[in-house]
Structures are given as C-alpha cells and as structure tokens.
C-alpha cells in the first residue's frame, strides 16, 4: 500500500533552522546510494513499541509513497523495534530503525531495499583548514554513536560505517562541521576557523569545558593571540580594552603588578575587590608582597621606607604558556569557587601539547622598546626661586621709585653681591631666562661658580634621565602527541631594561605540560611551571625623597642633570652625596645606582591530575596542586640620603606555599530528551605565608650592605596560615538543544572565621534558553540565546582577616615590648554574602557576520567583613565588623561584526562597552555621617558614601558662593572648606574598547582603541608642580608678579561681589592649589588610548613549502601609542600604591612615566 505523500510544511509551525541547514548541506552531496532528497523530504510519524519489523515498514508505507523490499528471514531475525517519531524525516527514521535492527537501506525510485547491516564499509577522508593545510588530531565521530577516530598527521582518517552516516568533525579552534557520508566515500572536509563558533567549547569554573551556548551567565574567552599581539611586560595589561566590565588597577614600573577588577568595586575593603585568579583549575591567591611602607605619600609613617613593587602572582605568569583566558564575570559563573568568587574569576588555561605536523617546535622572539611619549607640561621659561618675600630685591630703588616685579627677581647660588641665596628654593618662580648671567652651581667646584654664568634652561634635565626601555623575550616550545598522550615543554627567557637607568628584571620560565592515557580508563596529566625572576634594582614608588617621581617634581629648569651624575662629592664616595639644592632633593643617580631594591624569586606552580572513567557515565578526577614561591628582597640605602643619614639595609624573605587538593566526580547521562551532568567535588586549601624581615639602621662601613655591618639589627617575622575545606556540587540539565539549566551548591569551612561560623553554604542557579532552536525566527537570525542566573556566594574577606577572632599584642621596635592592637577583634563575625542576578542574550545575525552579546547584572555584597572606624577614645581605632551593603548594577555589550568578509580581505570589528554603577546601600550604623573612609593618601581620601559610590573621592575644596564661584577673603586668598567634601566618583561612568582586525591575504592589522568616560583622579604631582611654578599653566601672571583669583568676596551685608585683590604670583599658585585642596588638584579621568596596533605577516604554507619551516610570522606592534586625556601628568590610568597590599585608582601620588611600547615579534615553527 502506498499512502499519500506528506510534506508537512504548512502544518509545521516550527522548523528547526539548523535542520534546514543540515538538509541543505545533505543535498549538496553527490555519489550517494540513497536519494537523500526524497527521504529527507518525506516526513513520518510513528509510535511503536516492541514492534515487529514488518509492522514498522507497514506504518511507514502507509504514510509515504515508498515500498519496502526485504527478505522475510531478515524480518524474523530482527529484534523488536521501538520507534517514536513525530514528523520526522524518513531518512532519520530509517537510520534509527537501521541502528536498532542492524540493517541498512538502499533506495531506488520508490522502492527501498532492506539489507543486512553487517557489511561494514569504510569512509575515508581528510580534514583540512581553509588554506588546505591538513589538521592532525581532529576528531571525526559518527553522530549519535560512540564511534570516533582522530586524524593522523596528514589529516587523514578512516572510519567504519554501516551505511550513510552523519559525521561530526571537530577540531579545537575550528567550528564543528557535520557531513553526511556513506561507506566507500572519499571526502575532503574543510573546517572553518572560528573563535566564537556557536558550539564553541569554553572553560568554565573548575576547568570544566562546556559549550558556550549552554551557559547561563556571561563568559568571555581571550585567546593567547590576543594576549601576545602587542606583548606588554605584564600579560594582564593586554586584557585592557578587550573585555567589557573588566578594569585593571596597575602601578607602572618594570614589573607592573596589577589587580583585575570585574564589574566594579563591591567591597568596602579596598584590597578585596580583585578577581580570583585560577591557573589550570587552581585558585591562586594574588597577594602583593610589596615592601613595608603603608602609603605612597611620604612612605607612610616616618619610620617606613618608600614602597617598592616586587610583583604579584599575576605578574609572575609567562604569557607564552597561556592557551587562553576565560573571564567569568559574575558570581554565578564563579560560584563553584565559593569564598573567593564574589568578584568573579579569571581562569587561565596553559598550553598543552597537541599533535602537530612537523617537529612541533615553535620559536618566538620578541624585542620591545619602551619610549616615553607623554610628559607633564613643564615650563622652561623661568628658573629657580621662591618668588616671594625676602627673596625679592627691594620694591623701590635707591631713589624710592617702585621697581617692576620682574626686575626684583634675581638668582644667586649662595649669597653673593647679587643678594641672598635663592638656590634653596624648590620652586621655579625665579627670573626669566633672558640671557643674563648669575652666580650658579659649578660642578667642578661643587659650589658657587667663580664667575657669573649664563642663566639658561636645561630642557632635557628631566627627560634626559630616562632611557629607552628594552625587553627581549625568547621562547622555544616543543610539543607533540599521539592518540594516547601529548606533551609540551617551553622555555622562555625575558630580559627587561626598564626606562629608568639600572632598573629592570630578568626572568627564566620553564613549563612542562603532559598528559597520557595510561589505561583504557585512566588519564594522567601533569603541569609544572618554574620561573626564576631576578632584579638588581626595582624603582621606589610614590612620593618620597628617594623616589624618582619625587626628583622629577623637585628638579628645577635651570639645573643641569649632569651636575648630579657623579653622585658623590669628590673624595667623599659613599659618604657625602651631591645634593646642591634643597636638602629635600636626593640625587637621582643615587636613586638609580645606589638606592637599590633587588629581587630574587623562585616560583613553582604545578598540578598533577588523574582522570578515571569509572563507568561510561561516571568519571572521577583527582588533583593536587602547588603554588609556591620564595622571594628574597633587599633594600639598600646609602649614607647621606634624606631618610637615613648613615644608611639602611633590609632583607626580606617571603616564602609562600599554597596547596590545593581536589576531587570531582562527574556523572553524565541522557534520559530521552534530557541530558544530565552532575558533579560533586571537594577542595582543600592549605595556605602558608611566611615573611621574615631583618633590617639595620646605620651602616658601620658605608656602602657595605650586610646585616653584620649594621649599627643595630631588627627582625620581624610573620607567619600566616589558613585553611579552607569545601564540598560542592554542580548539576546541569539540558533539554534537547535549547534549554540548559545549572544548579550549584557549595559549602566552605574556613579557618579564618570563628568556630561557630566556620561553615557556610551558598547556592546558585543559571539557565540558558536557545530561542533559535525552538522558534521560527526571521531568516537573518542564526542564533539567539537568552540567559539568566541567580547566585549567592559567601566569603571570609581577605586572607589578611585571619587571626581576627582574638586579641593579640603586637611587637614594637623596642626590645622585649609589645603593644595593644588598634583593631578590635571579633569573636562572632560571619561570612560575607554576595548575591548576584544576571540576564543576558547572545544574538548572531547574517550567518554570524554580526554578533551581539549583552548582559545586565546586579550584585549586592552585604554582611561585609571590614574594619569599621571607632572613636579613638574607645581605645581602638577600628573594629572588624560585619556590615554594609554595596550594590553594583551594570550593562555590558559586546558587538562583533565581520564588516568585510571576502576571501582575500576581511575586517573584523569588535566593540565592547560597559557601564557599572556602584552604590552603597548601607554602612555600619556608626559610620560617620554615612561615610566610611577606606583610604587616605596625600590629601585625598577614598570614601564609601551611603547612597553614593563605594569609591568616592573626598577632600577639602574651595569654599563657594551659592552661584558656585570661589570665595576669596579680603586679602585675595581663596577660602577652603573646613570639612572634607565630595569631589567625585573615582569609578568611570563607562568603559569601552574597539578592536579592529584587518586581514589582507597574509597580512593582518590589528588595532585596539579603548577609553574610559567619567571618573575623577586626584593628582598629588599636579599639586606640587603647580605650587612650585613648574607647569606651563603657572606662567600666567609672571610678568605682573601678581594674579587675581577668579571669584567673589563675601561682603558684610551677606552679598557677594567680585574679588578685586590680586595676590603675589608665588602665593597665588600656592594658595589656589595647596596640598590640602583636593578639589583643585583633581581631574576628569576620562581618556581615549590607542592601545595596540599590530601588523603581522604570516608566511603562507605555499611559500614555506620548500623549507623546513611549517609556520612563520613576523609582526610589528605598538602599545599605548597615543592618549587623549585632560590628566596633566603621565598617565590617567596608573593607580597609587597604598601599603603593601592595595592599589587604589583615582589617587595619583608620585607617578612614574608610562611609556609607549614598540615591538617586533618573530615566530617560526618547524
């Protein structure tokens, strides 16, 4: 019997688009035995349980125009068949029947011949990339079965198939392709390289690789290429501008420690905002063992030295070994990391070996030059002089006639016939350079010159101190593998000469990554990274007598840098330093060559992992990981510098050891339309941080740095231990291909918390809904996914909160002494709770030519553990409490367009934009006036304000009239507020990045532009340079000698009238921009940067064909090439350093120049 053809086009209100694509591709195949067109276009419905084969065929015949021809023996021998199909194509139905009954089918016109399926035949093929290069190690799988093979070194595979099958071909970094093939076929399969393919596998929490479409939260992958395109010293610098919602607080300097912030500041503990760093599945504490000073401003308290950046865990990593970085922005994504996950996570996967054509050797060589291109706008028109009071010549001449201000100025180094010495002043309010002659410093005489010398500026007397930085990085990596295992080893050497003379570092990194299948069910893998970093000198940071930033401020236009060059007075080596001017100014060459901070560091990270397949649905992972380093840091201070008349020497040793042991049990199975993955895991963290400092004040023999040589020796020791045990579970459910739901739960036991609160549990849930799999969407839409998540994580705050549950007396420098703590302990503090909700979508249009990923989120962090200020009369200045609630809300957009996509030319543009708004919902009941001061440096304070930003800039400002004009007193001096006032939010309004990649044949050009809009930054350097008349804007009013402050005076009757009293020029810049006036020295932190430009030429395979090379590329690149910003000093992005532990953006206290970088990179593979 033949039934009517049923083409159910009209009755089908949905039709899965991917099926359309699928059949379209089927239709293009040739030389197949089956006329797929027919079978695929015929749709049948069947609901049979344990049916006989004949029954099946009858059912199908009734619905189609086909007739089945078969041997009845075959039918009798066949097992009973269960078939459940609703409007499915006959092709698919037959495949399922064939699979159950081990049969195959051949169609001739309207007849389908049924054959025994045992006749296995081979499909042969070759997997290639777009350029025709074979892809070894690609996986070829028969869809719906467990049969699969991998391609050999020539990309060739053979696979057995009983009949026509759908092959699924996948290769990491390429989009997976499905193709129908029949036994006997010989096919070439070309895979398209695609980073953001629909089914791209990405790394998620715990290192679990999952298809991106299944994720219910925002995740972004940054590839190795993106990191190395325009290689900076610290790889994390290369994340700038590439990930919406990601900001970086950095310091500048050779090593450039950084803190990565995702989605804004959520913690009232400013050191507790950084994202968790996870390397190969192992969380790494990103502690910052800087030197002891608590503040960049004057080195904190008097007894501490200027801070030095010795690098943190992020800075230690070698970017050559990074395969990719997965950014998990919200707690939902990182919930499985529990107590550390509140600020999101950065998952770093290092490179593994893979099968490779050729030897598998890759060599890269990178040379980079750093050139400072942005300087403060220093003036070189007027020279040294206080320009005030007793350092002016008399106001009237001998005949009593008034003398013009300009003519009252003079200069003399040491008192002379010209007048009292003016060379003690650090200011540049002295006489104009007009070709006149004065007694000046004579480097030969080391004092006043014998004759008057030409009064001239030395325009290169700051810039000339700096040099071109040079970084050479060479990497060689070897890799190879087979079906059973692979290995990769890499050696990298980096030598950096930083822009400051005699500073920089050298690093050697070794990395081994191996995996091996040791039995059918057991895989072993191990990773070991060793690095040795050494530096003879790292620069002192901040604003302090012996920081170079301090010298750059105090240097005067009329002073030749060369005068400082001998460092020591003749015959007084190591004893008497050349410091011809104010005693505040230490010799800059001493800062480079004598005041040294050296580092010698060994670090090892690694892990060992066993994966056991317990059952086809159940696997177990066991892992142990180590993160260990030993740092030796020396600080040498010679005689005769400001802080130490007789020198100082400090040796610091930090040993850190962090051990994580994990297990993860994974169960996967499918139940009809449902896929289930369930994970149960556990982690134990054992953390040990030992720091030993020994120092001496005063050296018996000058210039000998040895503790034995010290006049008095001090030591201090810190041991930090903590431990966290965790159990967690992740359950993922998938419904067909369109709905994915995750649930996680985690319980931590954290030693930092009081006993009764040590254990805490937090859940999360997320869902992903692929609309395009389910609904008929306009043709242009290829893919639409909606996602949403809710998560809660708990934490114990910073590891520095350990030992906070009991009272401890701490050491003081006095022998046999101990003093009371300033922070009140807390026997009952509880874990912090961060709750986040997130919604987003992922939309791809026009065959993925246009992609838009958007997310909105809200994160509320409450119950925060932080130090709340107490009235000092209570005996403590702060108490560790649980309080406060901070909300962050934001939007993140990522728009990607393949603007031009022709075979020879492509232009790929990515625009990312993010906006985050932080708001303090509540503080502690005792917070002063709804404010909580988190940091104070120079005159700027970083304050959390109830109802406002969690990182607002406060300080004193101008007293202003109701119209907003500055109020001056009767003498023409501006009034300043008595109290600190709100200056602005240090957090930007939005951040954006624009990445453009152009490819013309083998030539690639990559351009990254990024910027920030909004936010304020305080500049201590601006205050000081203005006060001292060293910036060009202080030239206004020089000739007149006075300047009128723009504003009003308050009259006795309460009205305001314009200020008419001009004040002396030197006073003007002092009182308009004093240290205390934070407002006057704060700037809009908005900027646009030309962040990266890379031009790469990739030698084609054809060109290399005759050589031993199989890969070669040369690139030229630049970083930070141009900046547009109102910020008057070097870089609107460089943060200050607060103590050994915190970076804080928005406050600049003695900034280092940040150079533009120019590099060339060569890569060859053979």
């Amino acid at each position, binding site marked *: 019997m033949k039934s009517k053809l049923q083409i159910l086009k009209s009755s089908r209100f949905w039709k899965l688009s991917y099926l359309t694509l699928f059949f379209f591709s089927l239709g293009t195949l040739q030389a197949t035995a089956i006329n797929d067109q027919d079978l695929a276009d015929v749709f049948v419905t069947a609901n049979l349980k344990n049916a006989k084969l004949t029954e099946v065929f009858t059912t199908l015949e009734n619905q189609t125009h086909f007739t089945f021809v078969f041997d009845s023996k075959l039918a009798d021998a066949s097992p009973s068949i269960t078939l459940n199909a609703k409007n499915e194509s006959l092709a698919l139905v037959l495949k399922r029947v064939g699979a159950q009954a081990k049969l195959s089918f051949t169609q001739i016109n309207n007849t389908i011949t049924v054959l025994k399926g045992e006749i296995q035949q081979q499909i042969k093929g070759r997997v290639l990339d777009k350029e025709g290069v074979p892809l070894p190690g690609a996986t070829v799988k028969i869809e719906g079965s467990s049969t699969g093979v991998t391609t050999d070194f020539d990309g060739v595979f053979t696979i057995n198939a009983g009949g026509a099958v759908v092959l699924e071909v996948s290769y990491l970094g390429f989009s997976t392709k499905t193709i129908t093939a029949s036994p006997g076929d010989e096919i070439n399969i070309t895979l398209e390289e695609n980073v953001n393919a629909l089914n791209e596998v990405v790394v998620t929490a715990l290192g679990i690789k999952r298809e991106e479409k299944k994720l219910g939260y925002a995740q972004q992958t940054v590839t190795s290429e993106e990191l190395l395109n325009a290689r900076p010293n610290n790889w994390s610098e290369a994340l700038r501008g590439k990930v919406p919602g990601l900001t970086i607080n950095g310091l500048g300097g050779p090593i450039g420690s950084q803190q990565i912030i995702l989605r804004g500041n959520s913690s009232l503990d400013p050191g507790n905002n950084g994202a968790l760093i996870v390397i190969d599945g192992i969380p790494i504490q990103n502690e910052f063992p800087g030197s002891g000073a608590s503040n960049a401003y004057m080195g904190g308290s008097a007894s501490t030295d200027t801070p030095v950046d010795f690098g943190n865990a992020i800075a230690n990593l070698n970017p050559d070994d990074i395969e990719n970085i997965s950014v998990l922005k919200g707690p939902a994504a990182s919930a499985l990391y529990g107590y550390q996950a509140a600020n999101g996570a950065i998952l770093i996967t290092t490179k593994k070996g893979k099968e490779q054509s050729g030897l598998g050797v890759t060599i890269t060589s990178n040379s980079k030059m750093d050139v400072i291109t942005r300087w403060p706008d220093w003036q070189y028109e007027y020279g040294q002089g206080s320009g005030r009071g007793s350092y002016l010549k008399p106001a009237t001449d001998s005949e009593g006639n008034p003398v013009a201000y300009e003519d009252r100025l003079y200069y003399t180094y040491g008192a002379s016939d010209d007048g009292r010495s003016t060379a003690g002043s650090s200011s540049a309010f002295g006489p104009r350079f007009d070709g006149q002659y004065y007694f000046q410093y004579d480097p030969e005489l080391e004092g006043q010159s014998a004759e008057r010398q030409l009064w001239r500026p030395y325009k290169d007397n700051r810039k000339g101190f700096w040099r071109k930085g040079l970084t050479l990085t060479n990497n060689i990596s070897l890799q190879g593998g087979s079906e059973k295992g692979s290995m990769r080893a890499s050696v990298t050497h980096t030598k950096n000469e930083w822009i400051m003379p005699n500073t920089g570092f050298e690093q050697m990194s070794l990395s081994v990554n191996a995996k091996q299948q040791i039995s059918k069910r057991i895989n072993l893998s191990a990773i070991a990274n060793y690095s040795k970093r050494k530096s003879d000198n790292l620069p002192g940071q901040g604003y302090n007598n012996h920081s170079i930033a301090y010298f750059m401020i105090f240097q005067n236009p009329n002073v030749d840098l060369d005068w400082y060059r001998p460092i020591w007075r003749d015959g007084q080596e190591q004893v008497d330093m050349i410091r011809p001017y104010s005693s505040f100014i230490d010799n800059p060459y001493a800062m480079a060559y004598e005041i040294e901070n050296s580092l010698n560091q060994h670090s090892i990270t690694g892990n060992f992992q066993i994966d056991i397949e317990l059952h086809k649905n159940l696997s177990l992972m066991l892992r142990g990981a180590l993160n260990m380093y030993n740092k030796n840091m020396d600080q040498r201070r010679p005689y005769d510098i400001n802080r130490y008349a007789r020198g100082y020497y400090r040796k610091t040793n930090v040993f850190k050891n962090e051990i994580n042991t994990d297990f993860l049990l994974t169960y996967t199975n499918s139940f009809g339309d449902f896929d289930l993955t369930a994970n149960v895991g556990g982690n134990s963290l054992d953390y040990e941080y030992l720091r030993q400092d020994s120092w001496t004040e005063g050296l018996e023999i000058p210039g000998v740095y040895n503790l034995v040589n010290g006049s008095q020796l001090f030591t201090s020791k810190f041991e930090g231990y903590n431990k966290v045990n965790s159990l967690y579970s992740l359950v993922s459910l998938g419904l067909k291909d369109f709905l994915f739901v995750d649930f996680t739960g985690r319980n931590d036991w954290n030693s930092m918390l009081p006993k009764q609160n040590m254990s805490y549990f937090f859940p999360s849930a997320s869902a992903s809904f692929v609309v395009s799999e389910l609904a008929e969407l306009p043709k242009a839409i290829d893919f639409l996914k909606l996602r949403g998540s809710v998560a809660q994580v708990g934490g114990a705050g910073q590891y520095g909160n350990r030992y906070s549950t009991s009272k401890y007396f701490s050491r003081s420098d006095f022998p046999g002494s101990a*003093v009371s703590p300033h922070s009140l302990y807390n026997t009952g503090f509880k874990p912090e709770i961060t709750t986040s909700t997130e919604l987003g979508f992922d939309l791809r249009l026009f065959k993925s030519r246009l992609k838009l990923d958007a997310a909105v989120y809200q994160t509320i962090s409450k119950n925060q553990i932080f130090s709340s200020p107490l009235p000092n009369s209570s005996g403590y200045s702060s108490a560790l409490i649980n309080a406060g609630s901070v909300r962050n809300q934001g939007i993140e957009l990522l728009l990607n367009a393949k603007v031009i996509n022709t075979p020879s030319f492509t232009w790929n543009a990515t625009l990312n934009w993010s906006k985050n708004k932080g708001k303090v919902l509540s503080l502690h009941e005792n917070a002063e006036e709804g404010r909580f001061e988190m940091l104070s440096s120079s005159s700027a304070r970083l304050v959390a304000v109830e109802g406002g930003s969690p990182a607002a800039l406060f300080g004193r400002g101008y007293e202003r009239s109701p119209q907003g004009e500055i109020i001056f007193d009767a003498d023409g001096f501006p009034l300043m507020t008595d109290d600190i006032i709100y200056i602005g939010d240090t957090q930007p309004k939005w951040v954006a990045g624009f990445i453009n990649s152009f490819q013309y044949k083998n030539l690639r050009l990559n351009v990254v532009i990024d910027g920030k809009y909004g936010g304020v930054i305080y500049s201590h350097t601006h205050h000081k340079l203005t006060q001292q008349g060293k910036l060009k804007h202080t030239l206004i009013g020089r000739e007149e000698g006075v300047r009128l402050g723009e504003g009003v005076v308050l009259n006795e009757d309460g009205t305001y009238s314009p200020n008419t009293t001009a004040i002396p020029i030197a006073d003007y810049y002092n009182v308009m921009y004093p240290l205390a006036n934070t407002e006057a020295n704060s700037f809009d932190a908005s900027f646009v940067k030309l962040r990266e430009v890379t031009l790469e030429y990739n030698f084609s395979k054809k060109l290399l064909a005759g050589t031993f090379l199989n890969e070669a590329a040369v690139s030229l690149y630049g970083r930070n090439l141009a900046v547009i910003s109102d910020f008057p000093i070097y870089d609107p992005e460089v943060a200050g350093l607060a103590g050994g532990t915190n970076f804080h953006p928005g406050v600049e206290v003695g900034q280092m120049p940040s150079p533009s970088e120019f590099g060339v990179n060569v890569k060859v593979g053979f």
Partner: protein
Amino acid sequence: MKTLKFLAIGLMVAVLSSCSTNFEEINTDPNNLQQITAGSSLNPILYELSTHNAIQHRNIGAQLMQMFIPNQDNINAVFYYDFVQNIGGSTWNTYYSELTNIKEMEKAAVRDELPNYEAIALTLKAYAYSILTDCFGDVPMREAASAEEGVWFPEFTEQEEIYAQILEDLERANSLYDPAQAMPYVNDILFQNDVSKWQKFTNSLHMRLLLRAANRESGAYTQLAAMANNPAQYPVFTSNADHAVLQITGEAPVLSPWSRPQDFNTFRVYNAFFIDNLKEFKDPRLPVFSTEAMGLNNENYGYIGLPIDYRNEPLADSIATISVPRQQLAVAPLIVPLMSYAEVAFIKAELAQRGLLTNAQDHYESGVEAALTMWNVSLPTGYFDNTATAYDGTLDRIMLQKYFALFFTDYQAWFEHRRTGLPQLPTTADMKNNMEMPSRLYYPIDEADRNNQNYKAAVERMGGDEISIKVWWDK
C-alpha cells in the same frame, strides 16, 4: 535530583567534623602575644607620647606661645589663632591609643602584683589624661579605652571629675611605690627602672596638676605647700639628675621624632618675643636654639626674630635670613622633656611668691639654672645681675623664665599662659578669636563624627566646641 541533593548533603554532614577539626588552632596567631607583662608596653608608651609631644610643640605649642612659627603661610596660621577643625586630632588619637596600652599595663601589674608598675601606670594615666583634658576640656575618661568590654562610644567626663580622679590616682601611686622591689622587666628609657625617680616624677606631676587646678580646687595651695614641705613622703625632682626628660639617643628605636630633620625647621623662624627676651637675658641658650640673621652679603646681623605683627612691622629688606631654629634640635641625640626639674623649681617659686613657701628667689634661680643646664649650657656668672633676669618678686618674672624652661615641652607653656595670662605676648589685629589666646582645641573631627551623641552632650555642657570656651580650671 532530590536523591543527589540528599547525597550531597549527607556527604557534607559526614565530613563536617573532619572538615574543620584543627581550624581554631590554625587561626591562632603565631606572630603576636596573647598576654603581656606590666613592662611590655612601657617603652613604646614613653616613646610615642614624647615624640608626639615634640611634634605638637613645634606645630602648636611653640606657635601659640610665639616661640617659633612658619613664615611661609598665613592660612590656618596657628599663631594667629586660626585653627583648622582637626587641630587636635593627632593628640587625641595618640593619647587614647597609649591610654589603651597604659590600661593593659595597669591590668598586668595588678595581675602580677607589681606595685611599682601599677604606680607607674597610674602616673602615666594621670599624665595622659591631664594633657588631654587641658587641651580639650571634657574628654572621655570613665568609659574610655573600653571597646573590648563593649563600650564603643564612651561618654565624656567632666574636667572637674577628671582632675579629681587623676589627683587621687597620683596620691595612690605615691603610696604604692616600693623601692625595695626592683622593676624586673627591660630597662625603661626614661628612668632606667629607677623606682625612686619614678616616684619623684609622680609627685612632681602631682604638683604641676594641683597648681593648675589651684584656682578652682580649694585647698590645693595648702596641699602643694604640704607636699613641698614633706619630701620624705612626697619626694620630687631635686635636680636635673631626676627629671623626666627623655634622652633621644638616635640609636634605634629611640630615634628623632623627625626622621627628616628638615621637617622640623624648614620654613620655621623665631619670633621677636622669644629672641628679644633671650637677647636681653644675655642667655647662653640662644646659640643652642637659634641661628643668627644674615644680610644680603652674608654679613652677620646677630639674632633677629620675626615680629608677630610682621605685616605692619616688616623687617628691613637688607636682611637675608632671620633667626631660625637650629636643625640640631631635631637631630639625635636630642631631648624631649616630659617634666623638668626646672618646672618643679618654678612651681615652688610661685608658691613662695604667693606666700606659701619661703625663699622664692632661691627657687627661681634654681629653676633658671636647671633650665639652662638642661640644654647643656652652664649658668654664666652674673646672669642674675641683669635687671631682666634678677628675681624681682613678681609672678611675671617667674612665669617669663618658666616660659623659656618649657621650651620643647609639649603644650605646657600654653597651659600655663591660660592659667596665669603670663608671659604677656604681643598681639596683632590679624589674630582671630578676638585676639584672645585660645582656651582649648576643637574636638577632633573623627571623634565628633564617630562618637556623635556623647560629643554633642559634652559640647552642650561646655557651652560649645569653640576655642574661646574656658575649661573648668580656667574659669
């Protein structure tokens, strides 16, 4: 799903006990002490208070008393009585911080039955509260330093009560000393564990504070006289060998309060009042304290101080530099007096001048001599033949010399000026506060904010948080 959840929870419960067995031990700080001795904090307390005092003397005391002032800046000029709101912040914080240490010291002394240390703790407590209350008026005392006991917001105690308490404590301290018992812990940096010197300090301080409150405290003068007449029961300083003057050796950790000595004297100049008087005295301390003024061509002009009314009385343009504080004063070895023998002598001189003791002139001259020798200069012969220095029977004369004796001694010269109005200092119309010497410091901003209710109650009681409000003993 449900089963799994149960399984997970079951597993968790199962390992719960093993998950945190030794966690409390791990969270015990191996770096710091959970218990201290009565001697543990003594040196840090002495050093912190003294160095703070030296810095505040430069910043406030010396300016108010026209000793030396900044010459760069007349915004928020302390010498013009133009105070920033937070002028007392660091004094407040330092003193309360050390009072916490003093409290721990007292607790340990009582616990370990060490009466000498208990007496020292009581003495330091009295010393610290006296400076606080004399600076501010009412300050927290009864409930202070008790955050650990749960009092995060201490009430302010009235000055009268504070004085009653500290005088009582000093009396008790005197009775506790037992010179037979040695002080067992590390040598203290002030008296090197000499119990008898500590006892003299207790009684000398007792006299200072009795005298300060004498206008309000009935019987104070009589009691002072009784103390002075009974050195067996109330031993006090009898020479510079006894005095409470901290020797800053420069050997770490006993370092100068100014790690950069130029922070002490840069942009600081002496006032005419200070220089002119010493010049008139022909005082050998002058070259110790001050540099000489220089002309344009390095000619020596001798000692010249800046008149307080320098806007109307400017110095001649021919003067290149006027007299400035010698940097050496801030370079170790240096001294920081807590209380000098000279002060005791001047107290006795005042009592005698008021008719409660005899031999006013002897006490006066002993005071002057001690004040000179404290700075390592000896009394020139004929020093008192000068009409400017000879004892003339007036309190003015005593207080003028006491003023110089209190150079470098925290706020004492200012307190004494508030008590006596002496010495009379020149004024200028540029001065705020109606040209009146301020009677106190503002309460610190932090305290006003963080302890707001109690702050408000105290301010209401005192009549305002103004620098013109007189404290109890000053009324």
